[in-house]
């Protein structure tokens, strides 16, 4: 089954994911943004409930008011009408020092503790598929107070028991592990958004736990599309649907060419 509204053609999956990504972010907080859907979701949040959301880009853009979709996190759109066009050393140092509330990333593979892989599929030295590597992901996952991850294709292949390569730290092997290895205290993954639901992490075990199901999706589907056991609480909410205004902003203002969101 697909999400009801997608089935009915009211919006597409990417639009739904962008809206759910946006809803996680709060006003008057800072967010360190990765390429693709994270940029779209963050811009939508800024144009709806979070006008004072501070966007930070790894190449040095701080607090832009982006005029059109940025293709790269280093290009001129990322410091258009910004408060600063600075450097990577500056924004990474600010992140390490505690100025980033949310990090926002995509990923190829994730395990039950929210550790992610964006480096290789297969063996490191002669890989089946070579992916770009960490980029800024390891830094965002290490330094951001709360990490948000979007994976558009949850399946047994992407929700795995063991990652081919642990690029970016989630909760590593469980409670207390981040602090034990020396990562900043109190940081870690916060939400994971897929085509089936929105997830958080159980306070005690730091394992992935369902927070809300997308309309039309069942708990069974969530379980079937994972190699590891996902914790299911007694109460599961329904994920918010895009409003007409969300869709108007996404389609007319943020990505009119449908480059990320499609047509």
């Amino acid at each position, binding site marked *: 089954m697909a999400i009801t509204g997608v089935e009915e053609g009211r919006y597409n999956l990417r639009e739904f994911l962008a809206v759910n990504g946006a809803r996680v972010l709060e006003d008057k907080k800072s967010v360190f943004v990765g390429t693709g859907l994270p940029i779209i979701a963050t811009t939508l949040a800024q144009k709806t409930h979070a006008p004072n959301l501070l966007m930070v880009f790894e190449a040095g853009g701080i607090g832009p008011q982006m005029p059109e979709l940025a293709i790269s996190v280093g290009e001129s759109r990322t410091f258009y009408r910004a408060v600063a066009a600075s450097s990577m*050393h500056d924004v990474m140092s600010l992140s390490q020092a505690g100025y980033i509330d949310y990090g926002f990333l995509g990923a190829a593979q994730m395990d039950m503790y929210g550790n992610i892989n964006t480096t290789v599929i297969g063996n490191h030295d002669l890989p089946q598929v070579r992916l770009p590597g960490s980029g800024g992901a390891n830094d965002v996952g290490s330094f951001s107070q709360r990490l948000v991850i979007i994976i558009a294709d949850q399946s047994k292949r992407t929700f795995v028991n063991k990652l081919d390569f642990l690029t970016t730290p989630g909760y590593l092997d469980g409670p207390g592990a981040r602090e034990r290895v020396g990562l900043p205290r109190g940081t870690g993954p916060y939400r994971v958004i897929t085509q089936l639901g929105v997830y958080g992490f159980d306070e005690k075990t730091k394992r992935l736990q369902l927070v809300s199901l997308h309309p039309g999706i069942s708990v069974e589907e969530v379980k079937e599309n994972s190699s590891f056991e996902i914790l299911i609480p007694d109460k599961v909410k329904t994920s918010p649907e895009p409003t007409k205004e969300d869709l108007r902003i996404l389609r007319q203002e943020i990505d009119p060419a449908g480059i990320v969101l499609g047509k």
Partner: protein
Amino acid sequence: MAVLQEGTGELIGWHDPDDARDWVLKNKSRELKDKTTSVKEAVSKFVRDGDFIASGGFGHTRVSMAIIYEIIRQKKRNLIMAGKTAVHDLDVLVSSACVNRVEAAYSFGHELRGLSPGSRRMVQTGQCKVVAETSNAGYQWRWLAAMMGLPFIPSRNLLGTDTLRYSSCKVIEDPFSGKPITLIPAAYPDVAFIHVHRCDVYGNAQIDSNLVEDFELARCARRLIMTTEKIVDNEFIRRQPWRTCIPFFVVDAVVETPYGSHPCEMPGMYYYDEDHIAEWLSLSRTPEGVDEYLQKYVFSVDCFEDYLKLCGGVKRMRYLKRREFLQEPMTAPWRKEG
């Protein structure tokens, strides 16, 4: 002090800090002298087979493409490249077999445009080795340690991951906090290429955009080739010295190359040439396509000016300028439908 963990990645470009100082004392002149030269001269003089190279800017933004294409034209070999969000530059250098080793932070991808078919194929067939992994902050702090004349810089990223296991970093117990801390080793590229908005004939440079890693990279590279949109008078620099982000004494060559970042962006001047990038992404799906691209855009022309003519000349550059200033609609010719 006990070392808690050691990465197994190859330690690229590290030198003992005293050796690094000696090298600077012996090789970096403080003389205010005219360093203008040609792309051809700069590459043949400063890029040697086997060198560890690094390219400035970020991704497809503010990249010294004139130098990158010239390295291919001169068929330099066995280069090691810093994959510090290196995108088109790294992709063409790996695909053309100039670079056969990479230390990867972000490599083999074109951000929103997808993965790089050419350089990925070289890695997946063993023709290019990834000798170490790191992160973007991890890479730029390698430059920072080197520009500070230090053997390493401590940091709190990479910890607990395979990225660290495959890096050249070490982890020790911090004597102040008692917590584990990563030591990121210094890196001195043999030669770096940075494209700027303007500089004088001595190399004093201004950049009108985000600096990314270039403040640090310019200062740690042993040799620095600077390409510039425009050469300005030294008086112009001296009127606003606070705008100088790279001072002349770290610069070894200055080449005036208008549109020198094409097909990449130059902030405030011209945008990405998406059609050109799409052509490369499509051709580089096969080794024959890579050859076709290189034959057309690199080997059949003598210089960057002729390359620009092939890419549409003045008319195209004017369009890219309008795109930069939001006067033309976005295009994404590389986008896969569906």
